[in-house]
Structure formats: structure tokens, C-alpha cells
């Protein structure tokens, strides 16, 4: 007897879940930093090109795969490209698993900052961080509070709380996820609309900030880094390459309009980003704060510093801001968890409770490691604590590198091995808008080609140019005294790379070779 696959109760539930997955921490804080860095309004041209030529087509492909097979990513990829396809699927899911581990740590730090905002500790002028520089160093309030907090054990407690929330929300799959996103996603929109209205219309000079963010500097268009930045922004912001969108789409009725779903999800995500960019940049402009193209710096230092300058109750406004971040982060992290759970259940027919229990234990252990308060970089030249160092290393491999590799490989499997015509035919059968042959060209040539270029560009820019493995220069910069800690820090970059390769590619190989429930029955 085959178990009936769960389904979304409504299309709106699915759209809210998919857009909630796409809208995360990066949308809220990092878009304004990227737009500012890459030429303001001029960034929008490559951004829209990337959205329509890469983002939406890949999303149609991932939705189409889920809808056509009604399976999670690895099993759907096996149907598309045999064992090699399944390996790509597991590689993506394990990457998503690693991302969820450090992402939950980021959310735990958000909870820590929220508690600090509630008690006003984040918004004091300066905090003397007692471990920085050996004798303590005064820092701007939010930055000081952040480093003081991550060097303590509070984040470890918060990690357990955030993982528990993930498990509770995904407890009954689509049923509980749909209930949660129907509250969380509208809440995010309302909070962000209030923030943008406040920023643009109630701050003296705020509207000018919005205009500045969108003022095009056409010289930016001639720079390859700007085009590369916009493609990365689109790929990461739409939650592509995680296997999440395929898992979510597999819970839709078979005859669903995937083109419509992909366009709606993408536009809602990018619309949210538009609002968030204007809201955040208006505050930064009015208070003359330079934005950073870094999620961490923007989220924990820059935006809270802007909030501190606002003529409002900082405790209330700050707590609401971190609550907004937590909610946005949760709607993303639950989708990562669901992608892993759905894949394991599809392969091994295990009970949801059992899979969730395993995910919870592995997740908590991993996230606790990523929030370890051991101080490794006393002068804050690169990171700070051992946990932050691990987040940085695993973020580089699983997010910056892994997602691009997955997106390239899935285009190859679907475009060349399975034949993109099959997906196109399935999507067109149920869609009001027909995809033409241009879709084939995008999936087979344009997208893998441009993403391969970015992968090589990133490697040359961040790894090869420095002539060393990512993170391997940290140990020398930290100047730790000889001992076990110095040895661990020196070895961590290679350990992180090995763990990432073995934990994704290696385990994916093992999972692909393992017999699934279906094969055993056969």
C-alpha cells in the first residue's frame, strides 16, 4: 500500500511557503548593501536580466521537476538522470543540511540580539568588550554587544530553542508549515511596509535615501563584478539549488501552473527585497552610515546602529526588528529542514517523527559547534570566536560554492540527460503561458555557462588570487600562542573543506548506492 502524499490545502498556502522560503535574512539586510555597492539603480538592469533569464527559469525547472515527479529532490533527480541525477540531488540536500546548521546559529544570534534590544543593552553608545585586544576595547553599542554575546553561552541555549521551533513547525509537514507561513509571511510584509513608510516618509531626508539607492551610475554596467554580483544575488535570494522548491512543489496537485507559481514567488520575493532595500537604506542614508555588502555586518551592527539613531523607542523598535529577522529566517530554515526530511522519507519510507528526531540531534550538535564561544581572534581581524570561524568556513563552501555547483549540475542533468523538453512539455500542459524553445536554450546553455563563469570567477577572486585555501591565512593573522587551540585553528580550513566534501559528495554517494524502500520492495 502506498502512502498518500501530503498536499498543500491551498495554492496560496504554497505561494506563501515558497516565497517565505525565498525571503530570508539576506533579503532584509543585504540587498541594500549589494545595490549600493554595485552602482545603485544601475544594479537593477543586471538584476532584472538575472531574474528573468536565470532566476525564474531555474525556479520553473525546480517546480516543474517536483510537480512532474511528485517526489523530493534526490528521487526526482533520479527519475530525471538516473543514479548520477540522484547523486546531484543528495549533494544538494546535504548542502542544504549544512546550510541549515549554520543558518540556525545566525538565527540564535538574532535571538540573542533581540534579547539585548529588549533590555536596551544593544543600544548604548559604547560597549567595552572585555576580551578584545586582550585588555578590552570600546566598540559601538550593537557591535560590542554582539561580540560580548557570542563569546558567552547564551547562543547555545538559543540554538536549541530555534531548532525546537523548526521541528515544531515542520512536525506535520505541509499541514503545520502552511499554518505557520499564513501567520509569518503576512506579518513580515506588514512589518516591512511599516518600516519603509517610516523610513521614506517620516525621517527627514529618508526619501532622498530611497532615491539615492536607485540612482543609476551607468559606469557600473561595464564592470563584470556588478553582473556577477547580480546573478549571485538572484540565485541566493530565490532559494535555488537547495532542493527546497522541488520538495515544496511535490506537495502540489499534479496539474498546477508552475510558470505562474514561479513568477509569483519570484516577484513577491524581489518585491519584498525592493521594499526592504528602500527601508534599510533610507535609515542608513539619514544617519550617514555606510552599508556593507555582508549579511552579518548589516544585520548585527549597521542596521541596529541606524535604529539607535532613530527618534523612536529603541527597545520596542529594535526588538520588533530582530523579531522580523527571526520570523523571516524561520520561514527559510523550515524549508531547508523540510527538504531534508522529505528526501529521507521518500528514500527510506521512514516515519516523519523519526527523521525529524535525527535531523534535530544532528542539527543541534552542528549549530552548537557553530556557536562555540572559544575566542580565537582576539583582535577581531577576521572573525572572533571559534563558532564564527566555523560559520565563515562552512558558509563559504556550502553557500557561496555549493549552491552554484548544484544549480549547474541540475541544469546539466535536466537539460542534457533527461532532456529539457520533458519538463517544458509538462509545464506547458498545465500553464496559461507557454514556454518556448528559448527555455531550452537557457537551461542547456545560458544558465550553466554563466554560473560556471561565476564559479570560476569566485575561485580566482577569493581562493587562487590569495594563493591559499579559503581561511588558511586566518591562523597567522590571529597570532594565537602555540598550543592545541592554535593547531585546531590552523587545521580548520582544511578540516572544513574535507568535512564539506565528505559530508556532501561522499555521503551523497553512499545514499545514492543505498537501497531505498522502493527498490527493496521491488
Amino acid at each position, binding site marked *: 500500500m502506498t502512502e498518500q502524499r501530503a498536499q498543500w490545502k491551498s*495554492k496560496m498556502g504554497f505561494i506563501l511557503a515558497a516565497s517565505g522560503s525565498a525571503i530570508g535574512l539576506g533579503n532584509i539586510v543585504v540587498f541594500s548593501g549589494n545595490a549600493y555597492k554595485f552602482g*545603485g539603480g544601475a544594479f*537593477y538592469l543586471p538584476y532584472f536580466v538575472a531574474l528573468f533569464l536565470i532566476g525564474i527559469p531555474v525556479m520553473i525547472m525546480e517546480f516543474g521537476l517536483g510537480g512532474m515527479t511528485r517526489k523530493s529532490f534526490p528521487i526526482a533527480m533520479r527519475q530525471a538522470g538516473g543514479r548520477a541525477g540522484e547523486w546531484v540531488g543528495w549533494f544538494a540536500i546535504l548542502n542544504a543540511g549544512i546550510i541549515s546548521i549554520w543558518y540556525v546559529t545566525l538565527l540564535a544570534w538574532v535571538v540573542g540580539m533581540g534579547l539585548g534590544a529588549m533590555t536596551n543593552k544593544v543600544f548604548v553608545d559604547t560597549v567595552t568588550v572585555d576580551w578584545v585586544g586582550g585588555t578590552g576595547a570600546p566598540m559601538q553599542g550593537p557591535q560590542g554587544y554582539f561580540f560580548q554575546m557570542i563569546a558567552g553561552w547564551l547562543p547555545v541555549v538559543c540554538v536549541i530553542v530555534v531548532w525546537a521551533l523548526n521541528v515544531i513547525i515542520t512536525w506535520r509537514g505541509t499541514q503545520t508549515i502552511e499554518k505557520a507561513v499564513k501567520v509569518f509571511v503576512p506579518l513580515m510584509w506588514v512589518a516591512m511596509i511599516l518600516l519603509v513608510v517610516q523610513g521614506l516618509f517620516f525621517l527627514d531626508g529618508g526619501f532622498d535615501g530611497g532615491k539615492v539607492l536607485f540612482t543609476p551610475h551607468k559606469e557600473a554596467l561595464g564592470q563584470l563584478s556588478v553582473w556577477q554580483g547580480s546573478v549571485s544575488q538572484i540565485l541566493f535570494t530565490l532559494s535555488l539549488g537547495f532542493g527546497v522548491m522541488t520538495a515544496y512543489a511535490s506537495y502540489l496537485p499534479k496539474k498546477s501552473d508552475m510558470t505562474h507559481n514561479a513568477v509569483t514567488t519570484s*516577484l513577491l520575493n524581489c518585491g519584498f527585497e*525592493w521594499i526592504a532595500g528602500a527601508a534599510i537604506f533610507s535609515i542608513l542614508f539619514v544617519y550617514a552610515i555606510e552599508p556593507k555588502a555582508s549579511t552579518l555586518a548589516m544585520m548585527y551592527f549597521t542596521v541596529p546602529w541606524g535604529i539607535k539613531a532613530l527618534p523612536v523607542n529603541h527597545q520596542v523598535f529594535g526588538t520588533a526588528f530582530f523579531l522580523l529577522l527571526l520570523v523571516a529566517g524561520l520561514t527559510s530554515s523550515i524549508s531547508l529542514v523540510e527538504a531534508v526530511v522529505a528526501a529521507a522519507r521518500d528514500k527510506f519510507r521512514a516515519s516523519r517523527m523519526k527523521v525529524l528526531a535525527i535531523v534535530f540531534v544532528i542539527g543541534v550538535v552542528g549549530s552548537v559547534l557553530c556557536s562555540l564561544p572559544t575566542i580565537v581572534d582576539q583582535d577581531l581581524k577576521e572573525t572572533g570566536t571559534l563558532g564564527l570561524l566555523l560559520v565563515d568556513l562552512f558558509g563559504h563552501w556550502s553557500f557561496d560554492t555549493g549552491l552554484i555547483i548544484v544549480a549547474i549540475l541540475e541544469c546539466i542533468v535536466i537539460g542534457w540527460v533527461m532532456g529539457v523538453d520533458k519538463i517544458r512539455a509538462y509545464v506547458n500542459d498545465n500553464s496559461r503561458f507557454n514556454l518556448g524553445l528559448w527555455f531550452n536554450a537557457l537551461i542547456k546553455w545560458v544558465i550553466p555557462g554563466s554560473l560556471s563563469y561565476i564559479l570560476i570567477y569566485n575561485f580566482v577572486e577569493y581562493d587562487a588570487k590569495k594563493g591559499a585555501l579559503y581561511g588558511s591565512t586566518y591562523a597567522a593573522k590571529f597570532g594565537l600562542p602555540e598550543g592545541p587551540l592554535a593547531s585546531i585553528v590552523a587545521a580548520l580550513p582544511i578540516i572544513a573543506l574535507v568535512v564539506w566534501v565528505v559530508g556532501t559528495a561522499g555521503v551523497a554517494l553512499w545514499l545514492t548506492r543505498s537501497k531505498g524502500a522502493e527498490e527493496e520492495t521491488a
Partner: protein
Amino acid sequence: MRLALATLLLCGALSAQTRTLHIEGYVAGKPYLVVNKETTIVARAGSMKSLTVTYRPGSEVEEKETVKVTGGIAMWKPKSAGLAKFDAMIKPPDSAAKPAPYSEIVSIRFDSAVSLGLIVMLFAGLILFGGAYVSVRALLREET
């Protein structure tokens, strides 16, 4: 005293639109907002030796401008709206001390209500929200 006198004299000599900007470090709740194309006097306690303005600091489209400093103060006319960074060498009032570097970010407001930025903002918003509106409306119609 000398600085204040020089500032006053310069202020008198310039049009009513001129404003004075004392770069004294960030003060919460008192942001520096200057207006594009409006002559601004940049001054700081002590004697300013040099001033470089970087438009859009930290971006891929940075642009630098060296501003002439006379008598410890600089007359600066912003070239474009946005964020700008001052990098100045300041000689502290204590004459024995060497000039020290000083940096500050300022916000330059637009000199007119309509700008290309506004048009791009509205156009991008129209594409995203117009598209989302049509999409979501079709979805809701299907649901009912």
C-alpha cells in the same frame, strides 16, 4: 578663534544658500545632511591640512575629489547626491602635535524633488509589484 572668524567671514561672503559643516564626529540623532550642488564650508576644531571627498565610498563606483583647503577650512560643492566620505588631515590645536587623519561619512541630499533615482525606483517597483499584483489576483480568483 581664528577658525571661527574665518568661517564667519566666508559665510558672509557667500550666498545665503551656503551652510557650514563642522565635522566633529558622529552624534546620535544629529546626522550630517548637506545638499547637492550647494556650497558648503567644511570645518573642524584644529586646523585642517587637507580634505579628500570620496563619493559612494565602499562601492564599485567610488569617485574621489580633492578639495582645496585654505586657512584650515574648505569650500566644498558636492557633485552628486548620496553618501560621501571625508578624509581629512587635522592638526590638533596643540601646535606641537602632528596632523592626524580623520574620517567622517556625510549624506548629500538631492537639490531637486525629481531625479533619475526616483524614476528608476518607481519603474522597478512597478515591474515587481505590478507583476506580483496581477499574479496574486489571478491566484486568488482561481482559489475562489
